[in-house]
């Protein structure tokens, strides 16, 4: 296990993330243009969506698939309530900020998903392709949970959840491309994969390195700006909450009877926090929340924690509890 953590630590991906962090801390002017960052995010979502779909085409729809999607939705909806309670108990964040942060932790991080699957592939542990669909399904319930929490705690605003807002959330670009590519992968199956393999599979590690370099830069600059808002209990939350979410996911995985690899992925999804889809939704739904808090926590603390420590841990746990 220590071996695995160490091996992951020294993968080019993790090292490029670290390089980005260091460059940001050293105030280097290294930067990735916005258009390129968006291309990289688009590519990663398209690639993991398509691969997941192509594997489902290979293995077919199963009861387990439906159950796991259900579990994912449940986790995404429930975790924010736990996160909110924890934040209010252990930190001095106000209700709105706590609700916004809770929304981020219910949702998932596509790049953490990618990272865990990458490590599993290196270790030759298989996982189910449909987990991409689970990831997509877990993106949004957390947003609605955060809204419900904020409603209960604070006066409702006119900018809240109306029809337009729901459409904006449901057809959010990152969900459309993830599910769309999943569908195209499922329809075209192995023949589609054959055509697209050099792009979708072979380029993947390289694009991921670039993306993580960028994430490191963004996280580093975010931390420099955002650390002021982050008290010790708030920072502790960003490490404890993944463990709680992961534990819940582990329990559900046992219930469903997932394989070792799939269990590790479901735990990682639950343990990860969003920084693509949720932040913009929260700006619309909870404008009074300070966006720097949630982003600093999810990208600056939880993401590196998962990358370095969480993923090896979740895989080790999955190896014990699953069969």
């Amino acid at each position, binding site marked *: 296990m220590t071996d695995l953590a160490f091996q992951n630590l020294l993968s080019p991906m993790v090292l490029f993330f670290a390089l980005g962090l260091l460059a940001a801390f050293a105030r280097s002017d290294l*930067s*990735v*243009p*916005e258009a390129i*960052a*968006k291309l*990289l*995010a688009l590519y990663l979502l398209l690639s993991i969506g398509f691969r997941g779909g192509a594997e489902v085409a290979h293995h077919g729809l199963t009861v387990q698939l439906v159950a796991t999607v259900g579990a994912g939705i449940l986790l995404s909806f429930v975790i924010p309530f736990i996160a909110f309670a924890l934040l209010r108990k252990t930190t001095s964040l106000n209700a709105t900020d706590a609700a916004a942060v809770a929304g981020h932790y219910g949702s998932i991080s596509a790049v953490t998903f990618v990272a865990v699957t990458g490590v599993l592939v290196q270790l030759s542990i298989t996982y189910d392709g449909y987990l991409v669909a689970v990831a997509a399904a877990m993106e949004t319930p957390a947003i609605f949970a955060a809204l419900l929490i904020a409603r209960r705690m604070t006066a409702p*605003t*006119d*900018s809240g959840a109306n029809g*337009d807002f729901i459409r*904006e959330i449901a057809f959010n670009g990152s969900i459309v491309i993830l599910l769309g590519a999943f569908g195209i992968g499922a329809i075209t199956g192995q023949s589609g994969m054959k055509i697209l393999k050099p792009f979708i599979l072979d380029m993947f590690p390289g694009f991921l390195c670039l993306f993580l370099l*960028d994430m490191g*830069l*963004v996280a580093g*600059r975010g931390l420099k*700006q*955002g650390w002021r808002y982050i008290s010790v209990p708030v920072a502790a939350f960003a490490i404890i909450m993944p463990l709680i979410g992961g534990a819940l996911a582990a329990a559900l995985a046992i219930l469903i009877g997932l394989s070792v690899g799939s269990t590790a992925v479901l735990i990682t999804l639950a343990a990860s926090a969003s*920084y*693509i*889809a949720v*932040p*913009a*939704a*929260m*700006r*619309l739904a909870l*404008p*009074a929340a300070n*966006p*720097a808090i949630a*982003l600093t926590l999810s990208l600056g603390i939880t993401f590196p924690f998962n990358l370095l420590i969480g993923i090896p841990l979740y895989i080790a746990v999955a190896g014990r509890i699953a069969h």
Partner: protein
Amino acid sequence: MKTYPKKRIDIIFEAPLMQRIIDRLEQAKVSGYSVMPIIAGRGHDSSWTADGQISNATKMVSIVCITDASKVDDLLDSVLGAISNQIGFVTISDVSVVRPERF
């Protein structure tokens, strides 16, 4: 050359609000608007930059709208409603135009 006085409204706001601001402008029946990018900035508590961002959550954007003085109050009313809880502000200034009928 003969010119006519109009007002230039600059609205600087958080990018996720885009659709709402645009809806408000259309309600206020302005003749048009142009969206201009902002690539970095600093406000009362922190600075930001568009570099490397994958979502628009932390970005500001600017809308310029040339309009008749008579429409300014309506426009401010509706736009300020949309940005009241959010980061953003509006400036109004005087400009002259050559073809007044189009605004």
